[in-house]
């Protein structure tokens, strides 16, 4: 850092820093305030902790993780999400490459993609269960069906929007289609890949949880449904909170992965 920074610059930097701290502190205060309010209202009986649960009971449930198999359920959900996410991404990229390669194929596929994209994939649930069986496979297929089409469209769109001048430049050297793909289109679209990974991880989780709602015997989605049916709101709330944390961790991992890849490219 430059040591000879002007006073104005110092003031500006300080202001930026205090602003950042203020935002963070406000966020923390909202969370803590919410938790305290929830706990207190439940304790004095203004809200019914039987149907809303309360932070101390959630913490209790959380502490007894092993007793109610939370860890095992968590593992199942994570595994399903990761399999769905990875296969959705890889398949999506392959399909996008095929559609980029052949304009004819892309034109033929267009209306099908549009319809499949707007169709709520959850409606396919019963079909999937009958076709692949009521187990983990069905859940993974559900995650895949939710994330795949979006991935294909997102990546294909990125490919097609690659700077025309770059393609033209490569053509002046008589580049083959494969060379254009590997040396220009793919490296130019690294940020498209990362964006689609970010969208994908969220969608895979949606697919897994809705799949678990429908068929499973394990997983966080199963716990939430089960907890609801037996009126154990503590279990439901704890599962939802763990799910939120898992989702955040998975998303952040993708963000960090993206940063590493972009750095690695340079």
């Amino acid at each position, binding site marked *: 850092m430059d040591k000879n920074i002007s006073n104005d610059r110092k003031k500006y930097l300080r202001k930026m820093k205090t602003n950042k701290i203020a935002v963070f502190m406000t966020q923390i205060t909202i969370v803590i305030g919410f938790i305290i309010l929830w706990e207190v209202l439940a304790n004095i009986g203004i809200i019914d902790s039987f149907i809303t649960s309360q932070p101390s009971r959630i913490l209790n449930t959380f502490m007894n993780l092993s007793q109610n198999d939370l860890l095992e359920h968590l593992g199942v959900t994570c595994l399903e999400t990761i399999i769905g996410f990875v296969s959705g991404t890889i398949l999506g990229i392959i399909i996008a490459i095929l559609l980029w390669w052949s304009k004819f194929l892309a034109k033929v596929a267009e209306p099908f993609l549009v319809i499949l994209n707007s169709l709520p994939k959850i409606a396919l649930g019963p079909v999937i269960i009958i076709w692949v069986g009521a187990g983990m496979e069905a859940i993974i297929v559900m995650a895949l069906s939710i994330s795949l089409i979006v991935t294909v469209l997102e990546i294909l769109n990125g490919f097609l929007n690659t700077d025309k001048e770059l393609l033209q*430049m*490569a053509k*002046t050297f008589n580049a083959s289609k494969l060379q254009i793909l590997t040396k220009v289109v793919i490296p130019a679209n690294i940020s498209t890949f990362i964006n689609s990974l970010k969208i994908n991880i969220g969608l895979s989780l949606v697919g897994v949880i809705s799949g678990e709602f429908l068929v499973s015997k394990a997983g966080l989605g199963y716990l939430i449904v089960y907890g609801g049916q037996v009126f154990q709101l503590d279990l439901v709330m704890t599962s939802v909170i763990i799910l939120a944390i898992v989702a955040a961790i998975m998303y952040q991992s993708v963000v960090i992965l993206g940063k590493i890849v972009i750095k690695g490219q340079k």
Partner: protein
Amino acid sequence: MKEVLEIKNVAKTYQAKNGELEAIRDVSFSVKDGEFVSIIGPSGCGKSTLLSIIAGLEKRTAGEVIIDGESVDKISDKIGYMLQKDSLLEWRTVYNNVLFGLEIRKNKNEENKAYANELLKKYHLEEFKTKYPSQLSGGMRQRVALIRTLAVKPKILLLDEAFSALDYQTRLMVTKDIYKILKNEKITTIMVTHDISEAISMSDRVIVLTKRPTTVKKIYDINFEIENRDPLNCRKSHKFSEYFDCLWKELDVHG
């Protein structure tokens, strides 16, 4: 001097849903070894199309393009093509950008790499070899793009409005630099431009095209009789404004 490029009765008609468009009717000219030829014409007259046809990027409807005595109708190894934008790949270093053409043509051997290095050194870019394009100025980027094109050792260089994306100051400097490089390396050059003064200051001959459907209107020999000619000292010559007036009338912008 022998002729390295001959354009014989080239024509181009575009087919579209709503009909045909005759872009180029009949264009013929030839270029001698080491010559710098500019092509100017009213906007939309198919200058760039003509260049794409010479490069083999676009199919012509009729006529012939002869390079070094051989009739050519696809992308030729003897041609280098530089576009308006530098089109450097942001994820590659300057050095790897320069090697891009060699890589595509599968010519990345030690000899060619040494030549690329020599060019970088000669044109003051060696210390930026490991930098990324985003760290360079517009003028430097354009020079890197030129070296990328020259690294594949083309006989003929085509410049398609190659400087028009630069601001005026940079543009004057870059045209001077690039002119020197081209003369040093004895590269035959055909430049398409809409800038009359740029055409005069760099060329040995200027070809004026008509409106669409395009034919050759007139070919001007430009001769400044200046020793160590470069685009900047040409601009100071009294002949410059004479040529400018001639070409301006020839283009007949208001007609």
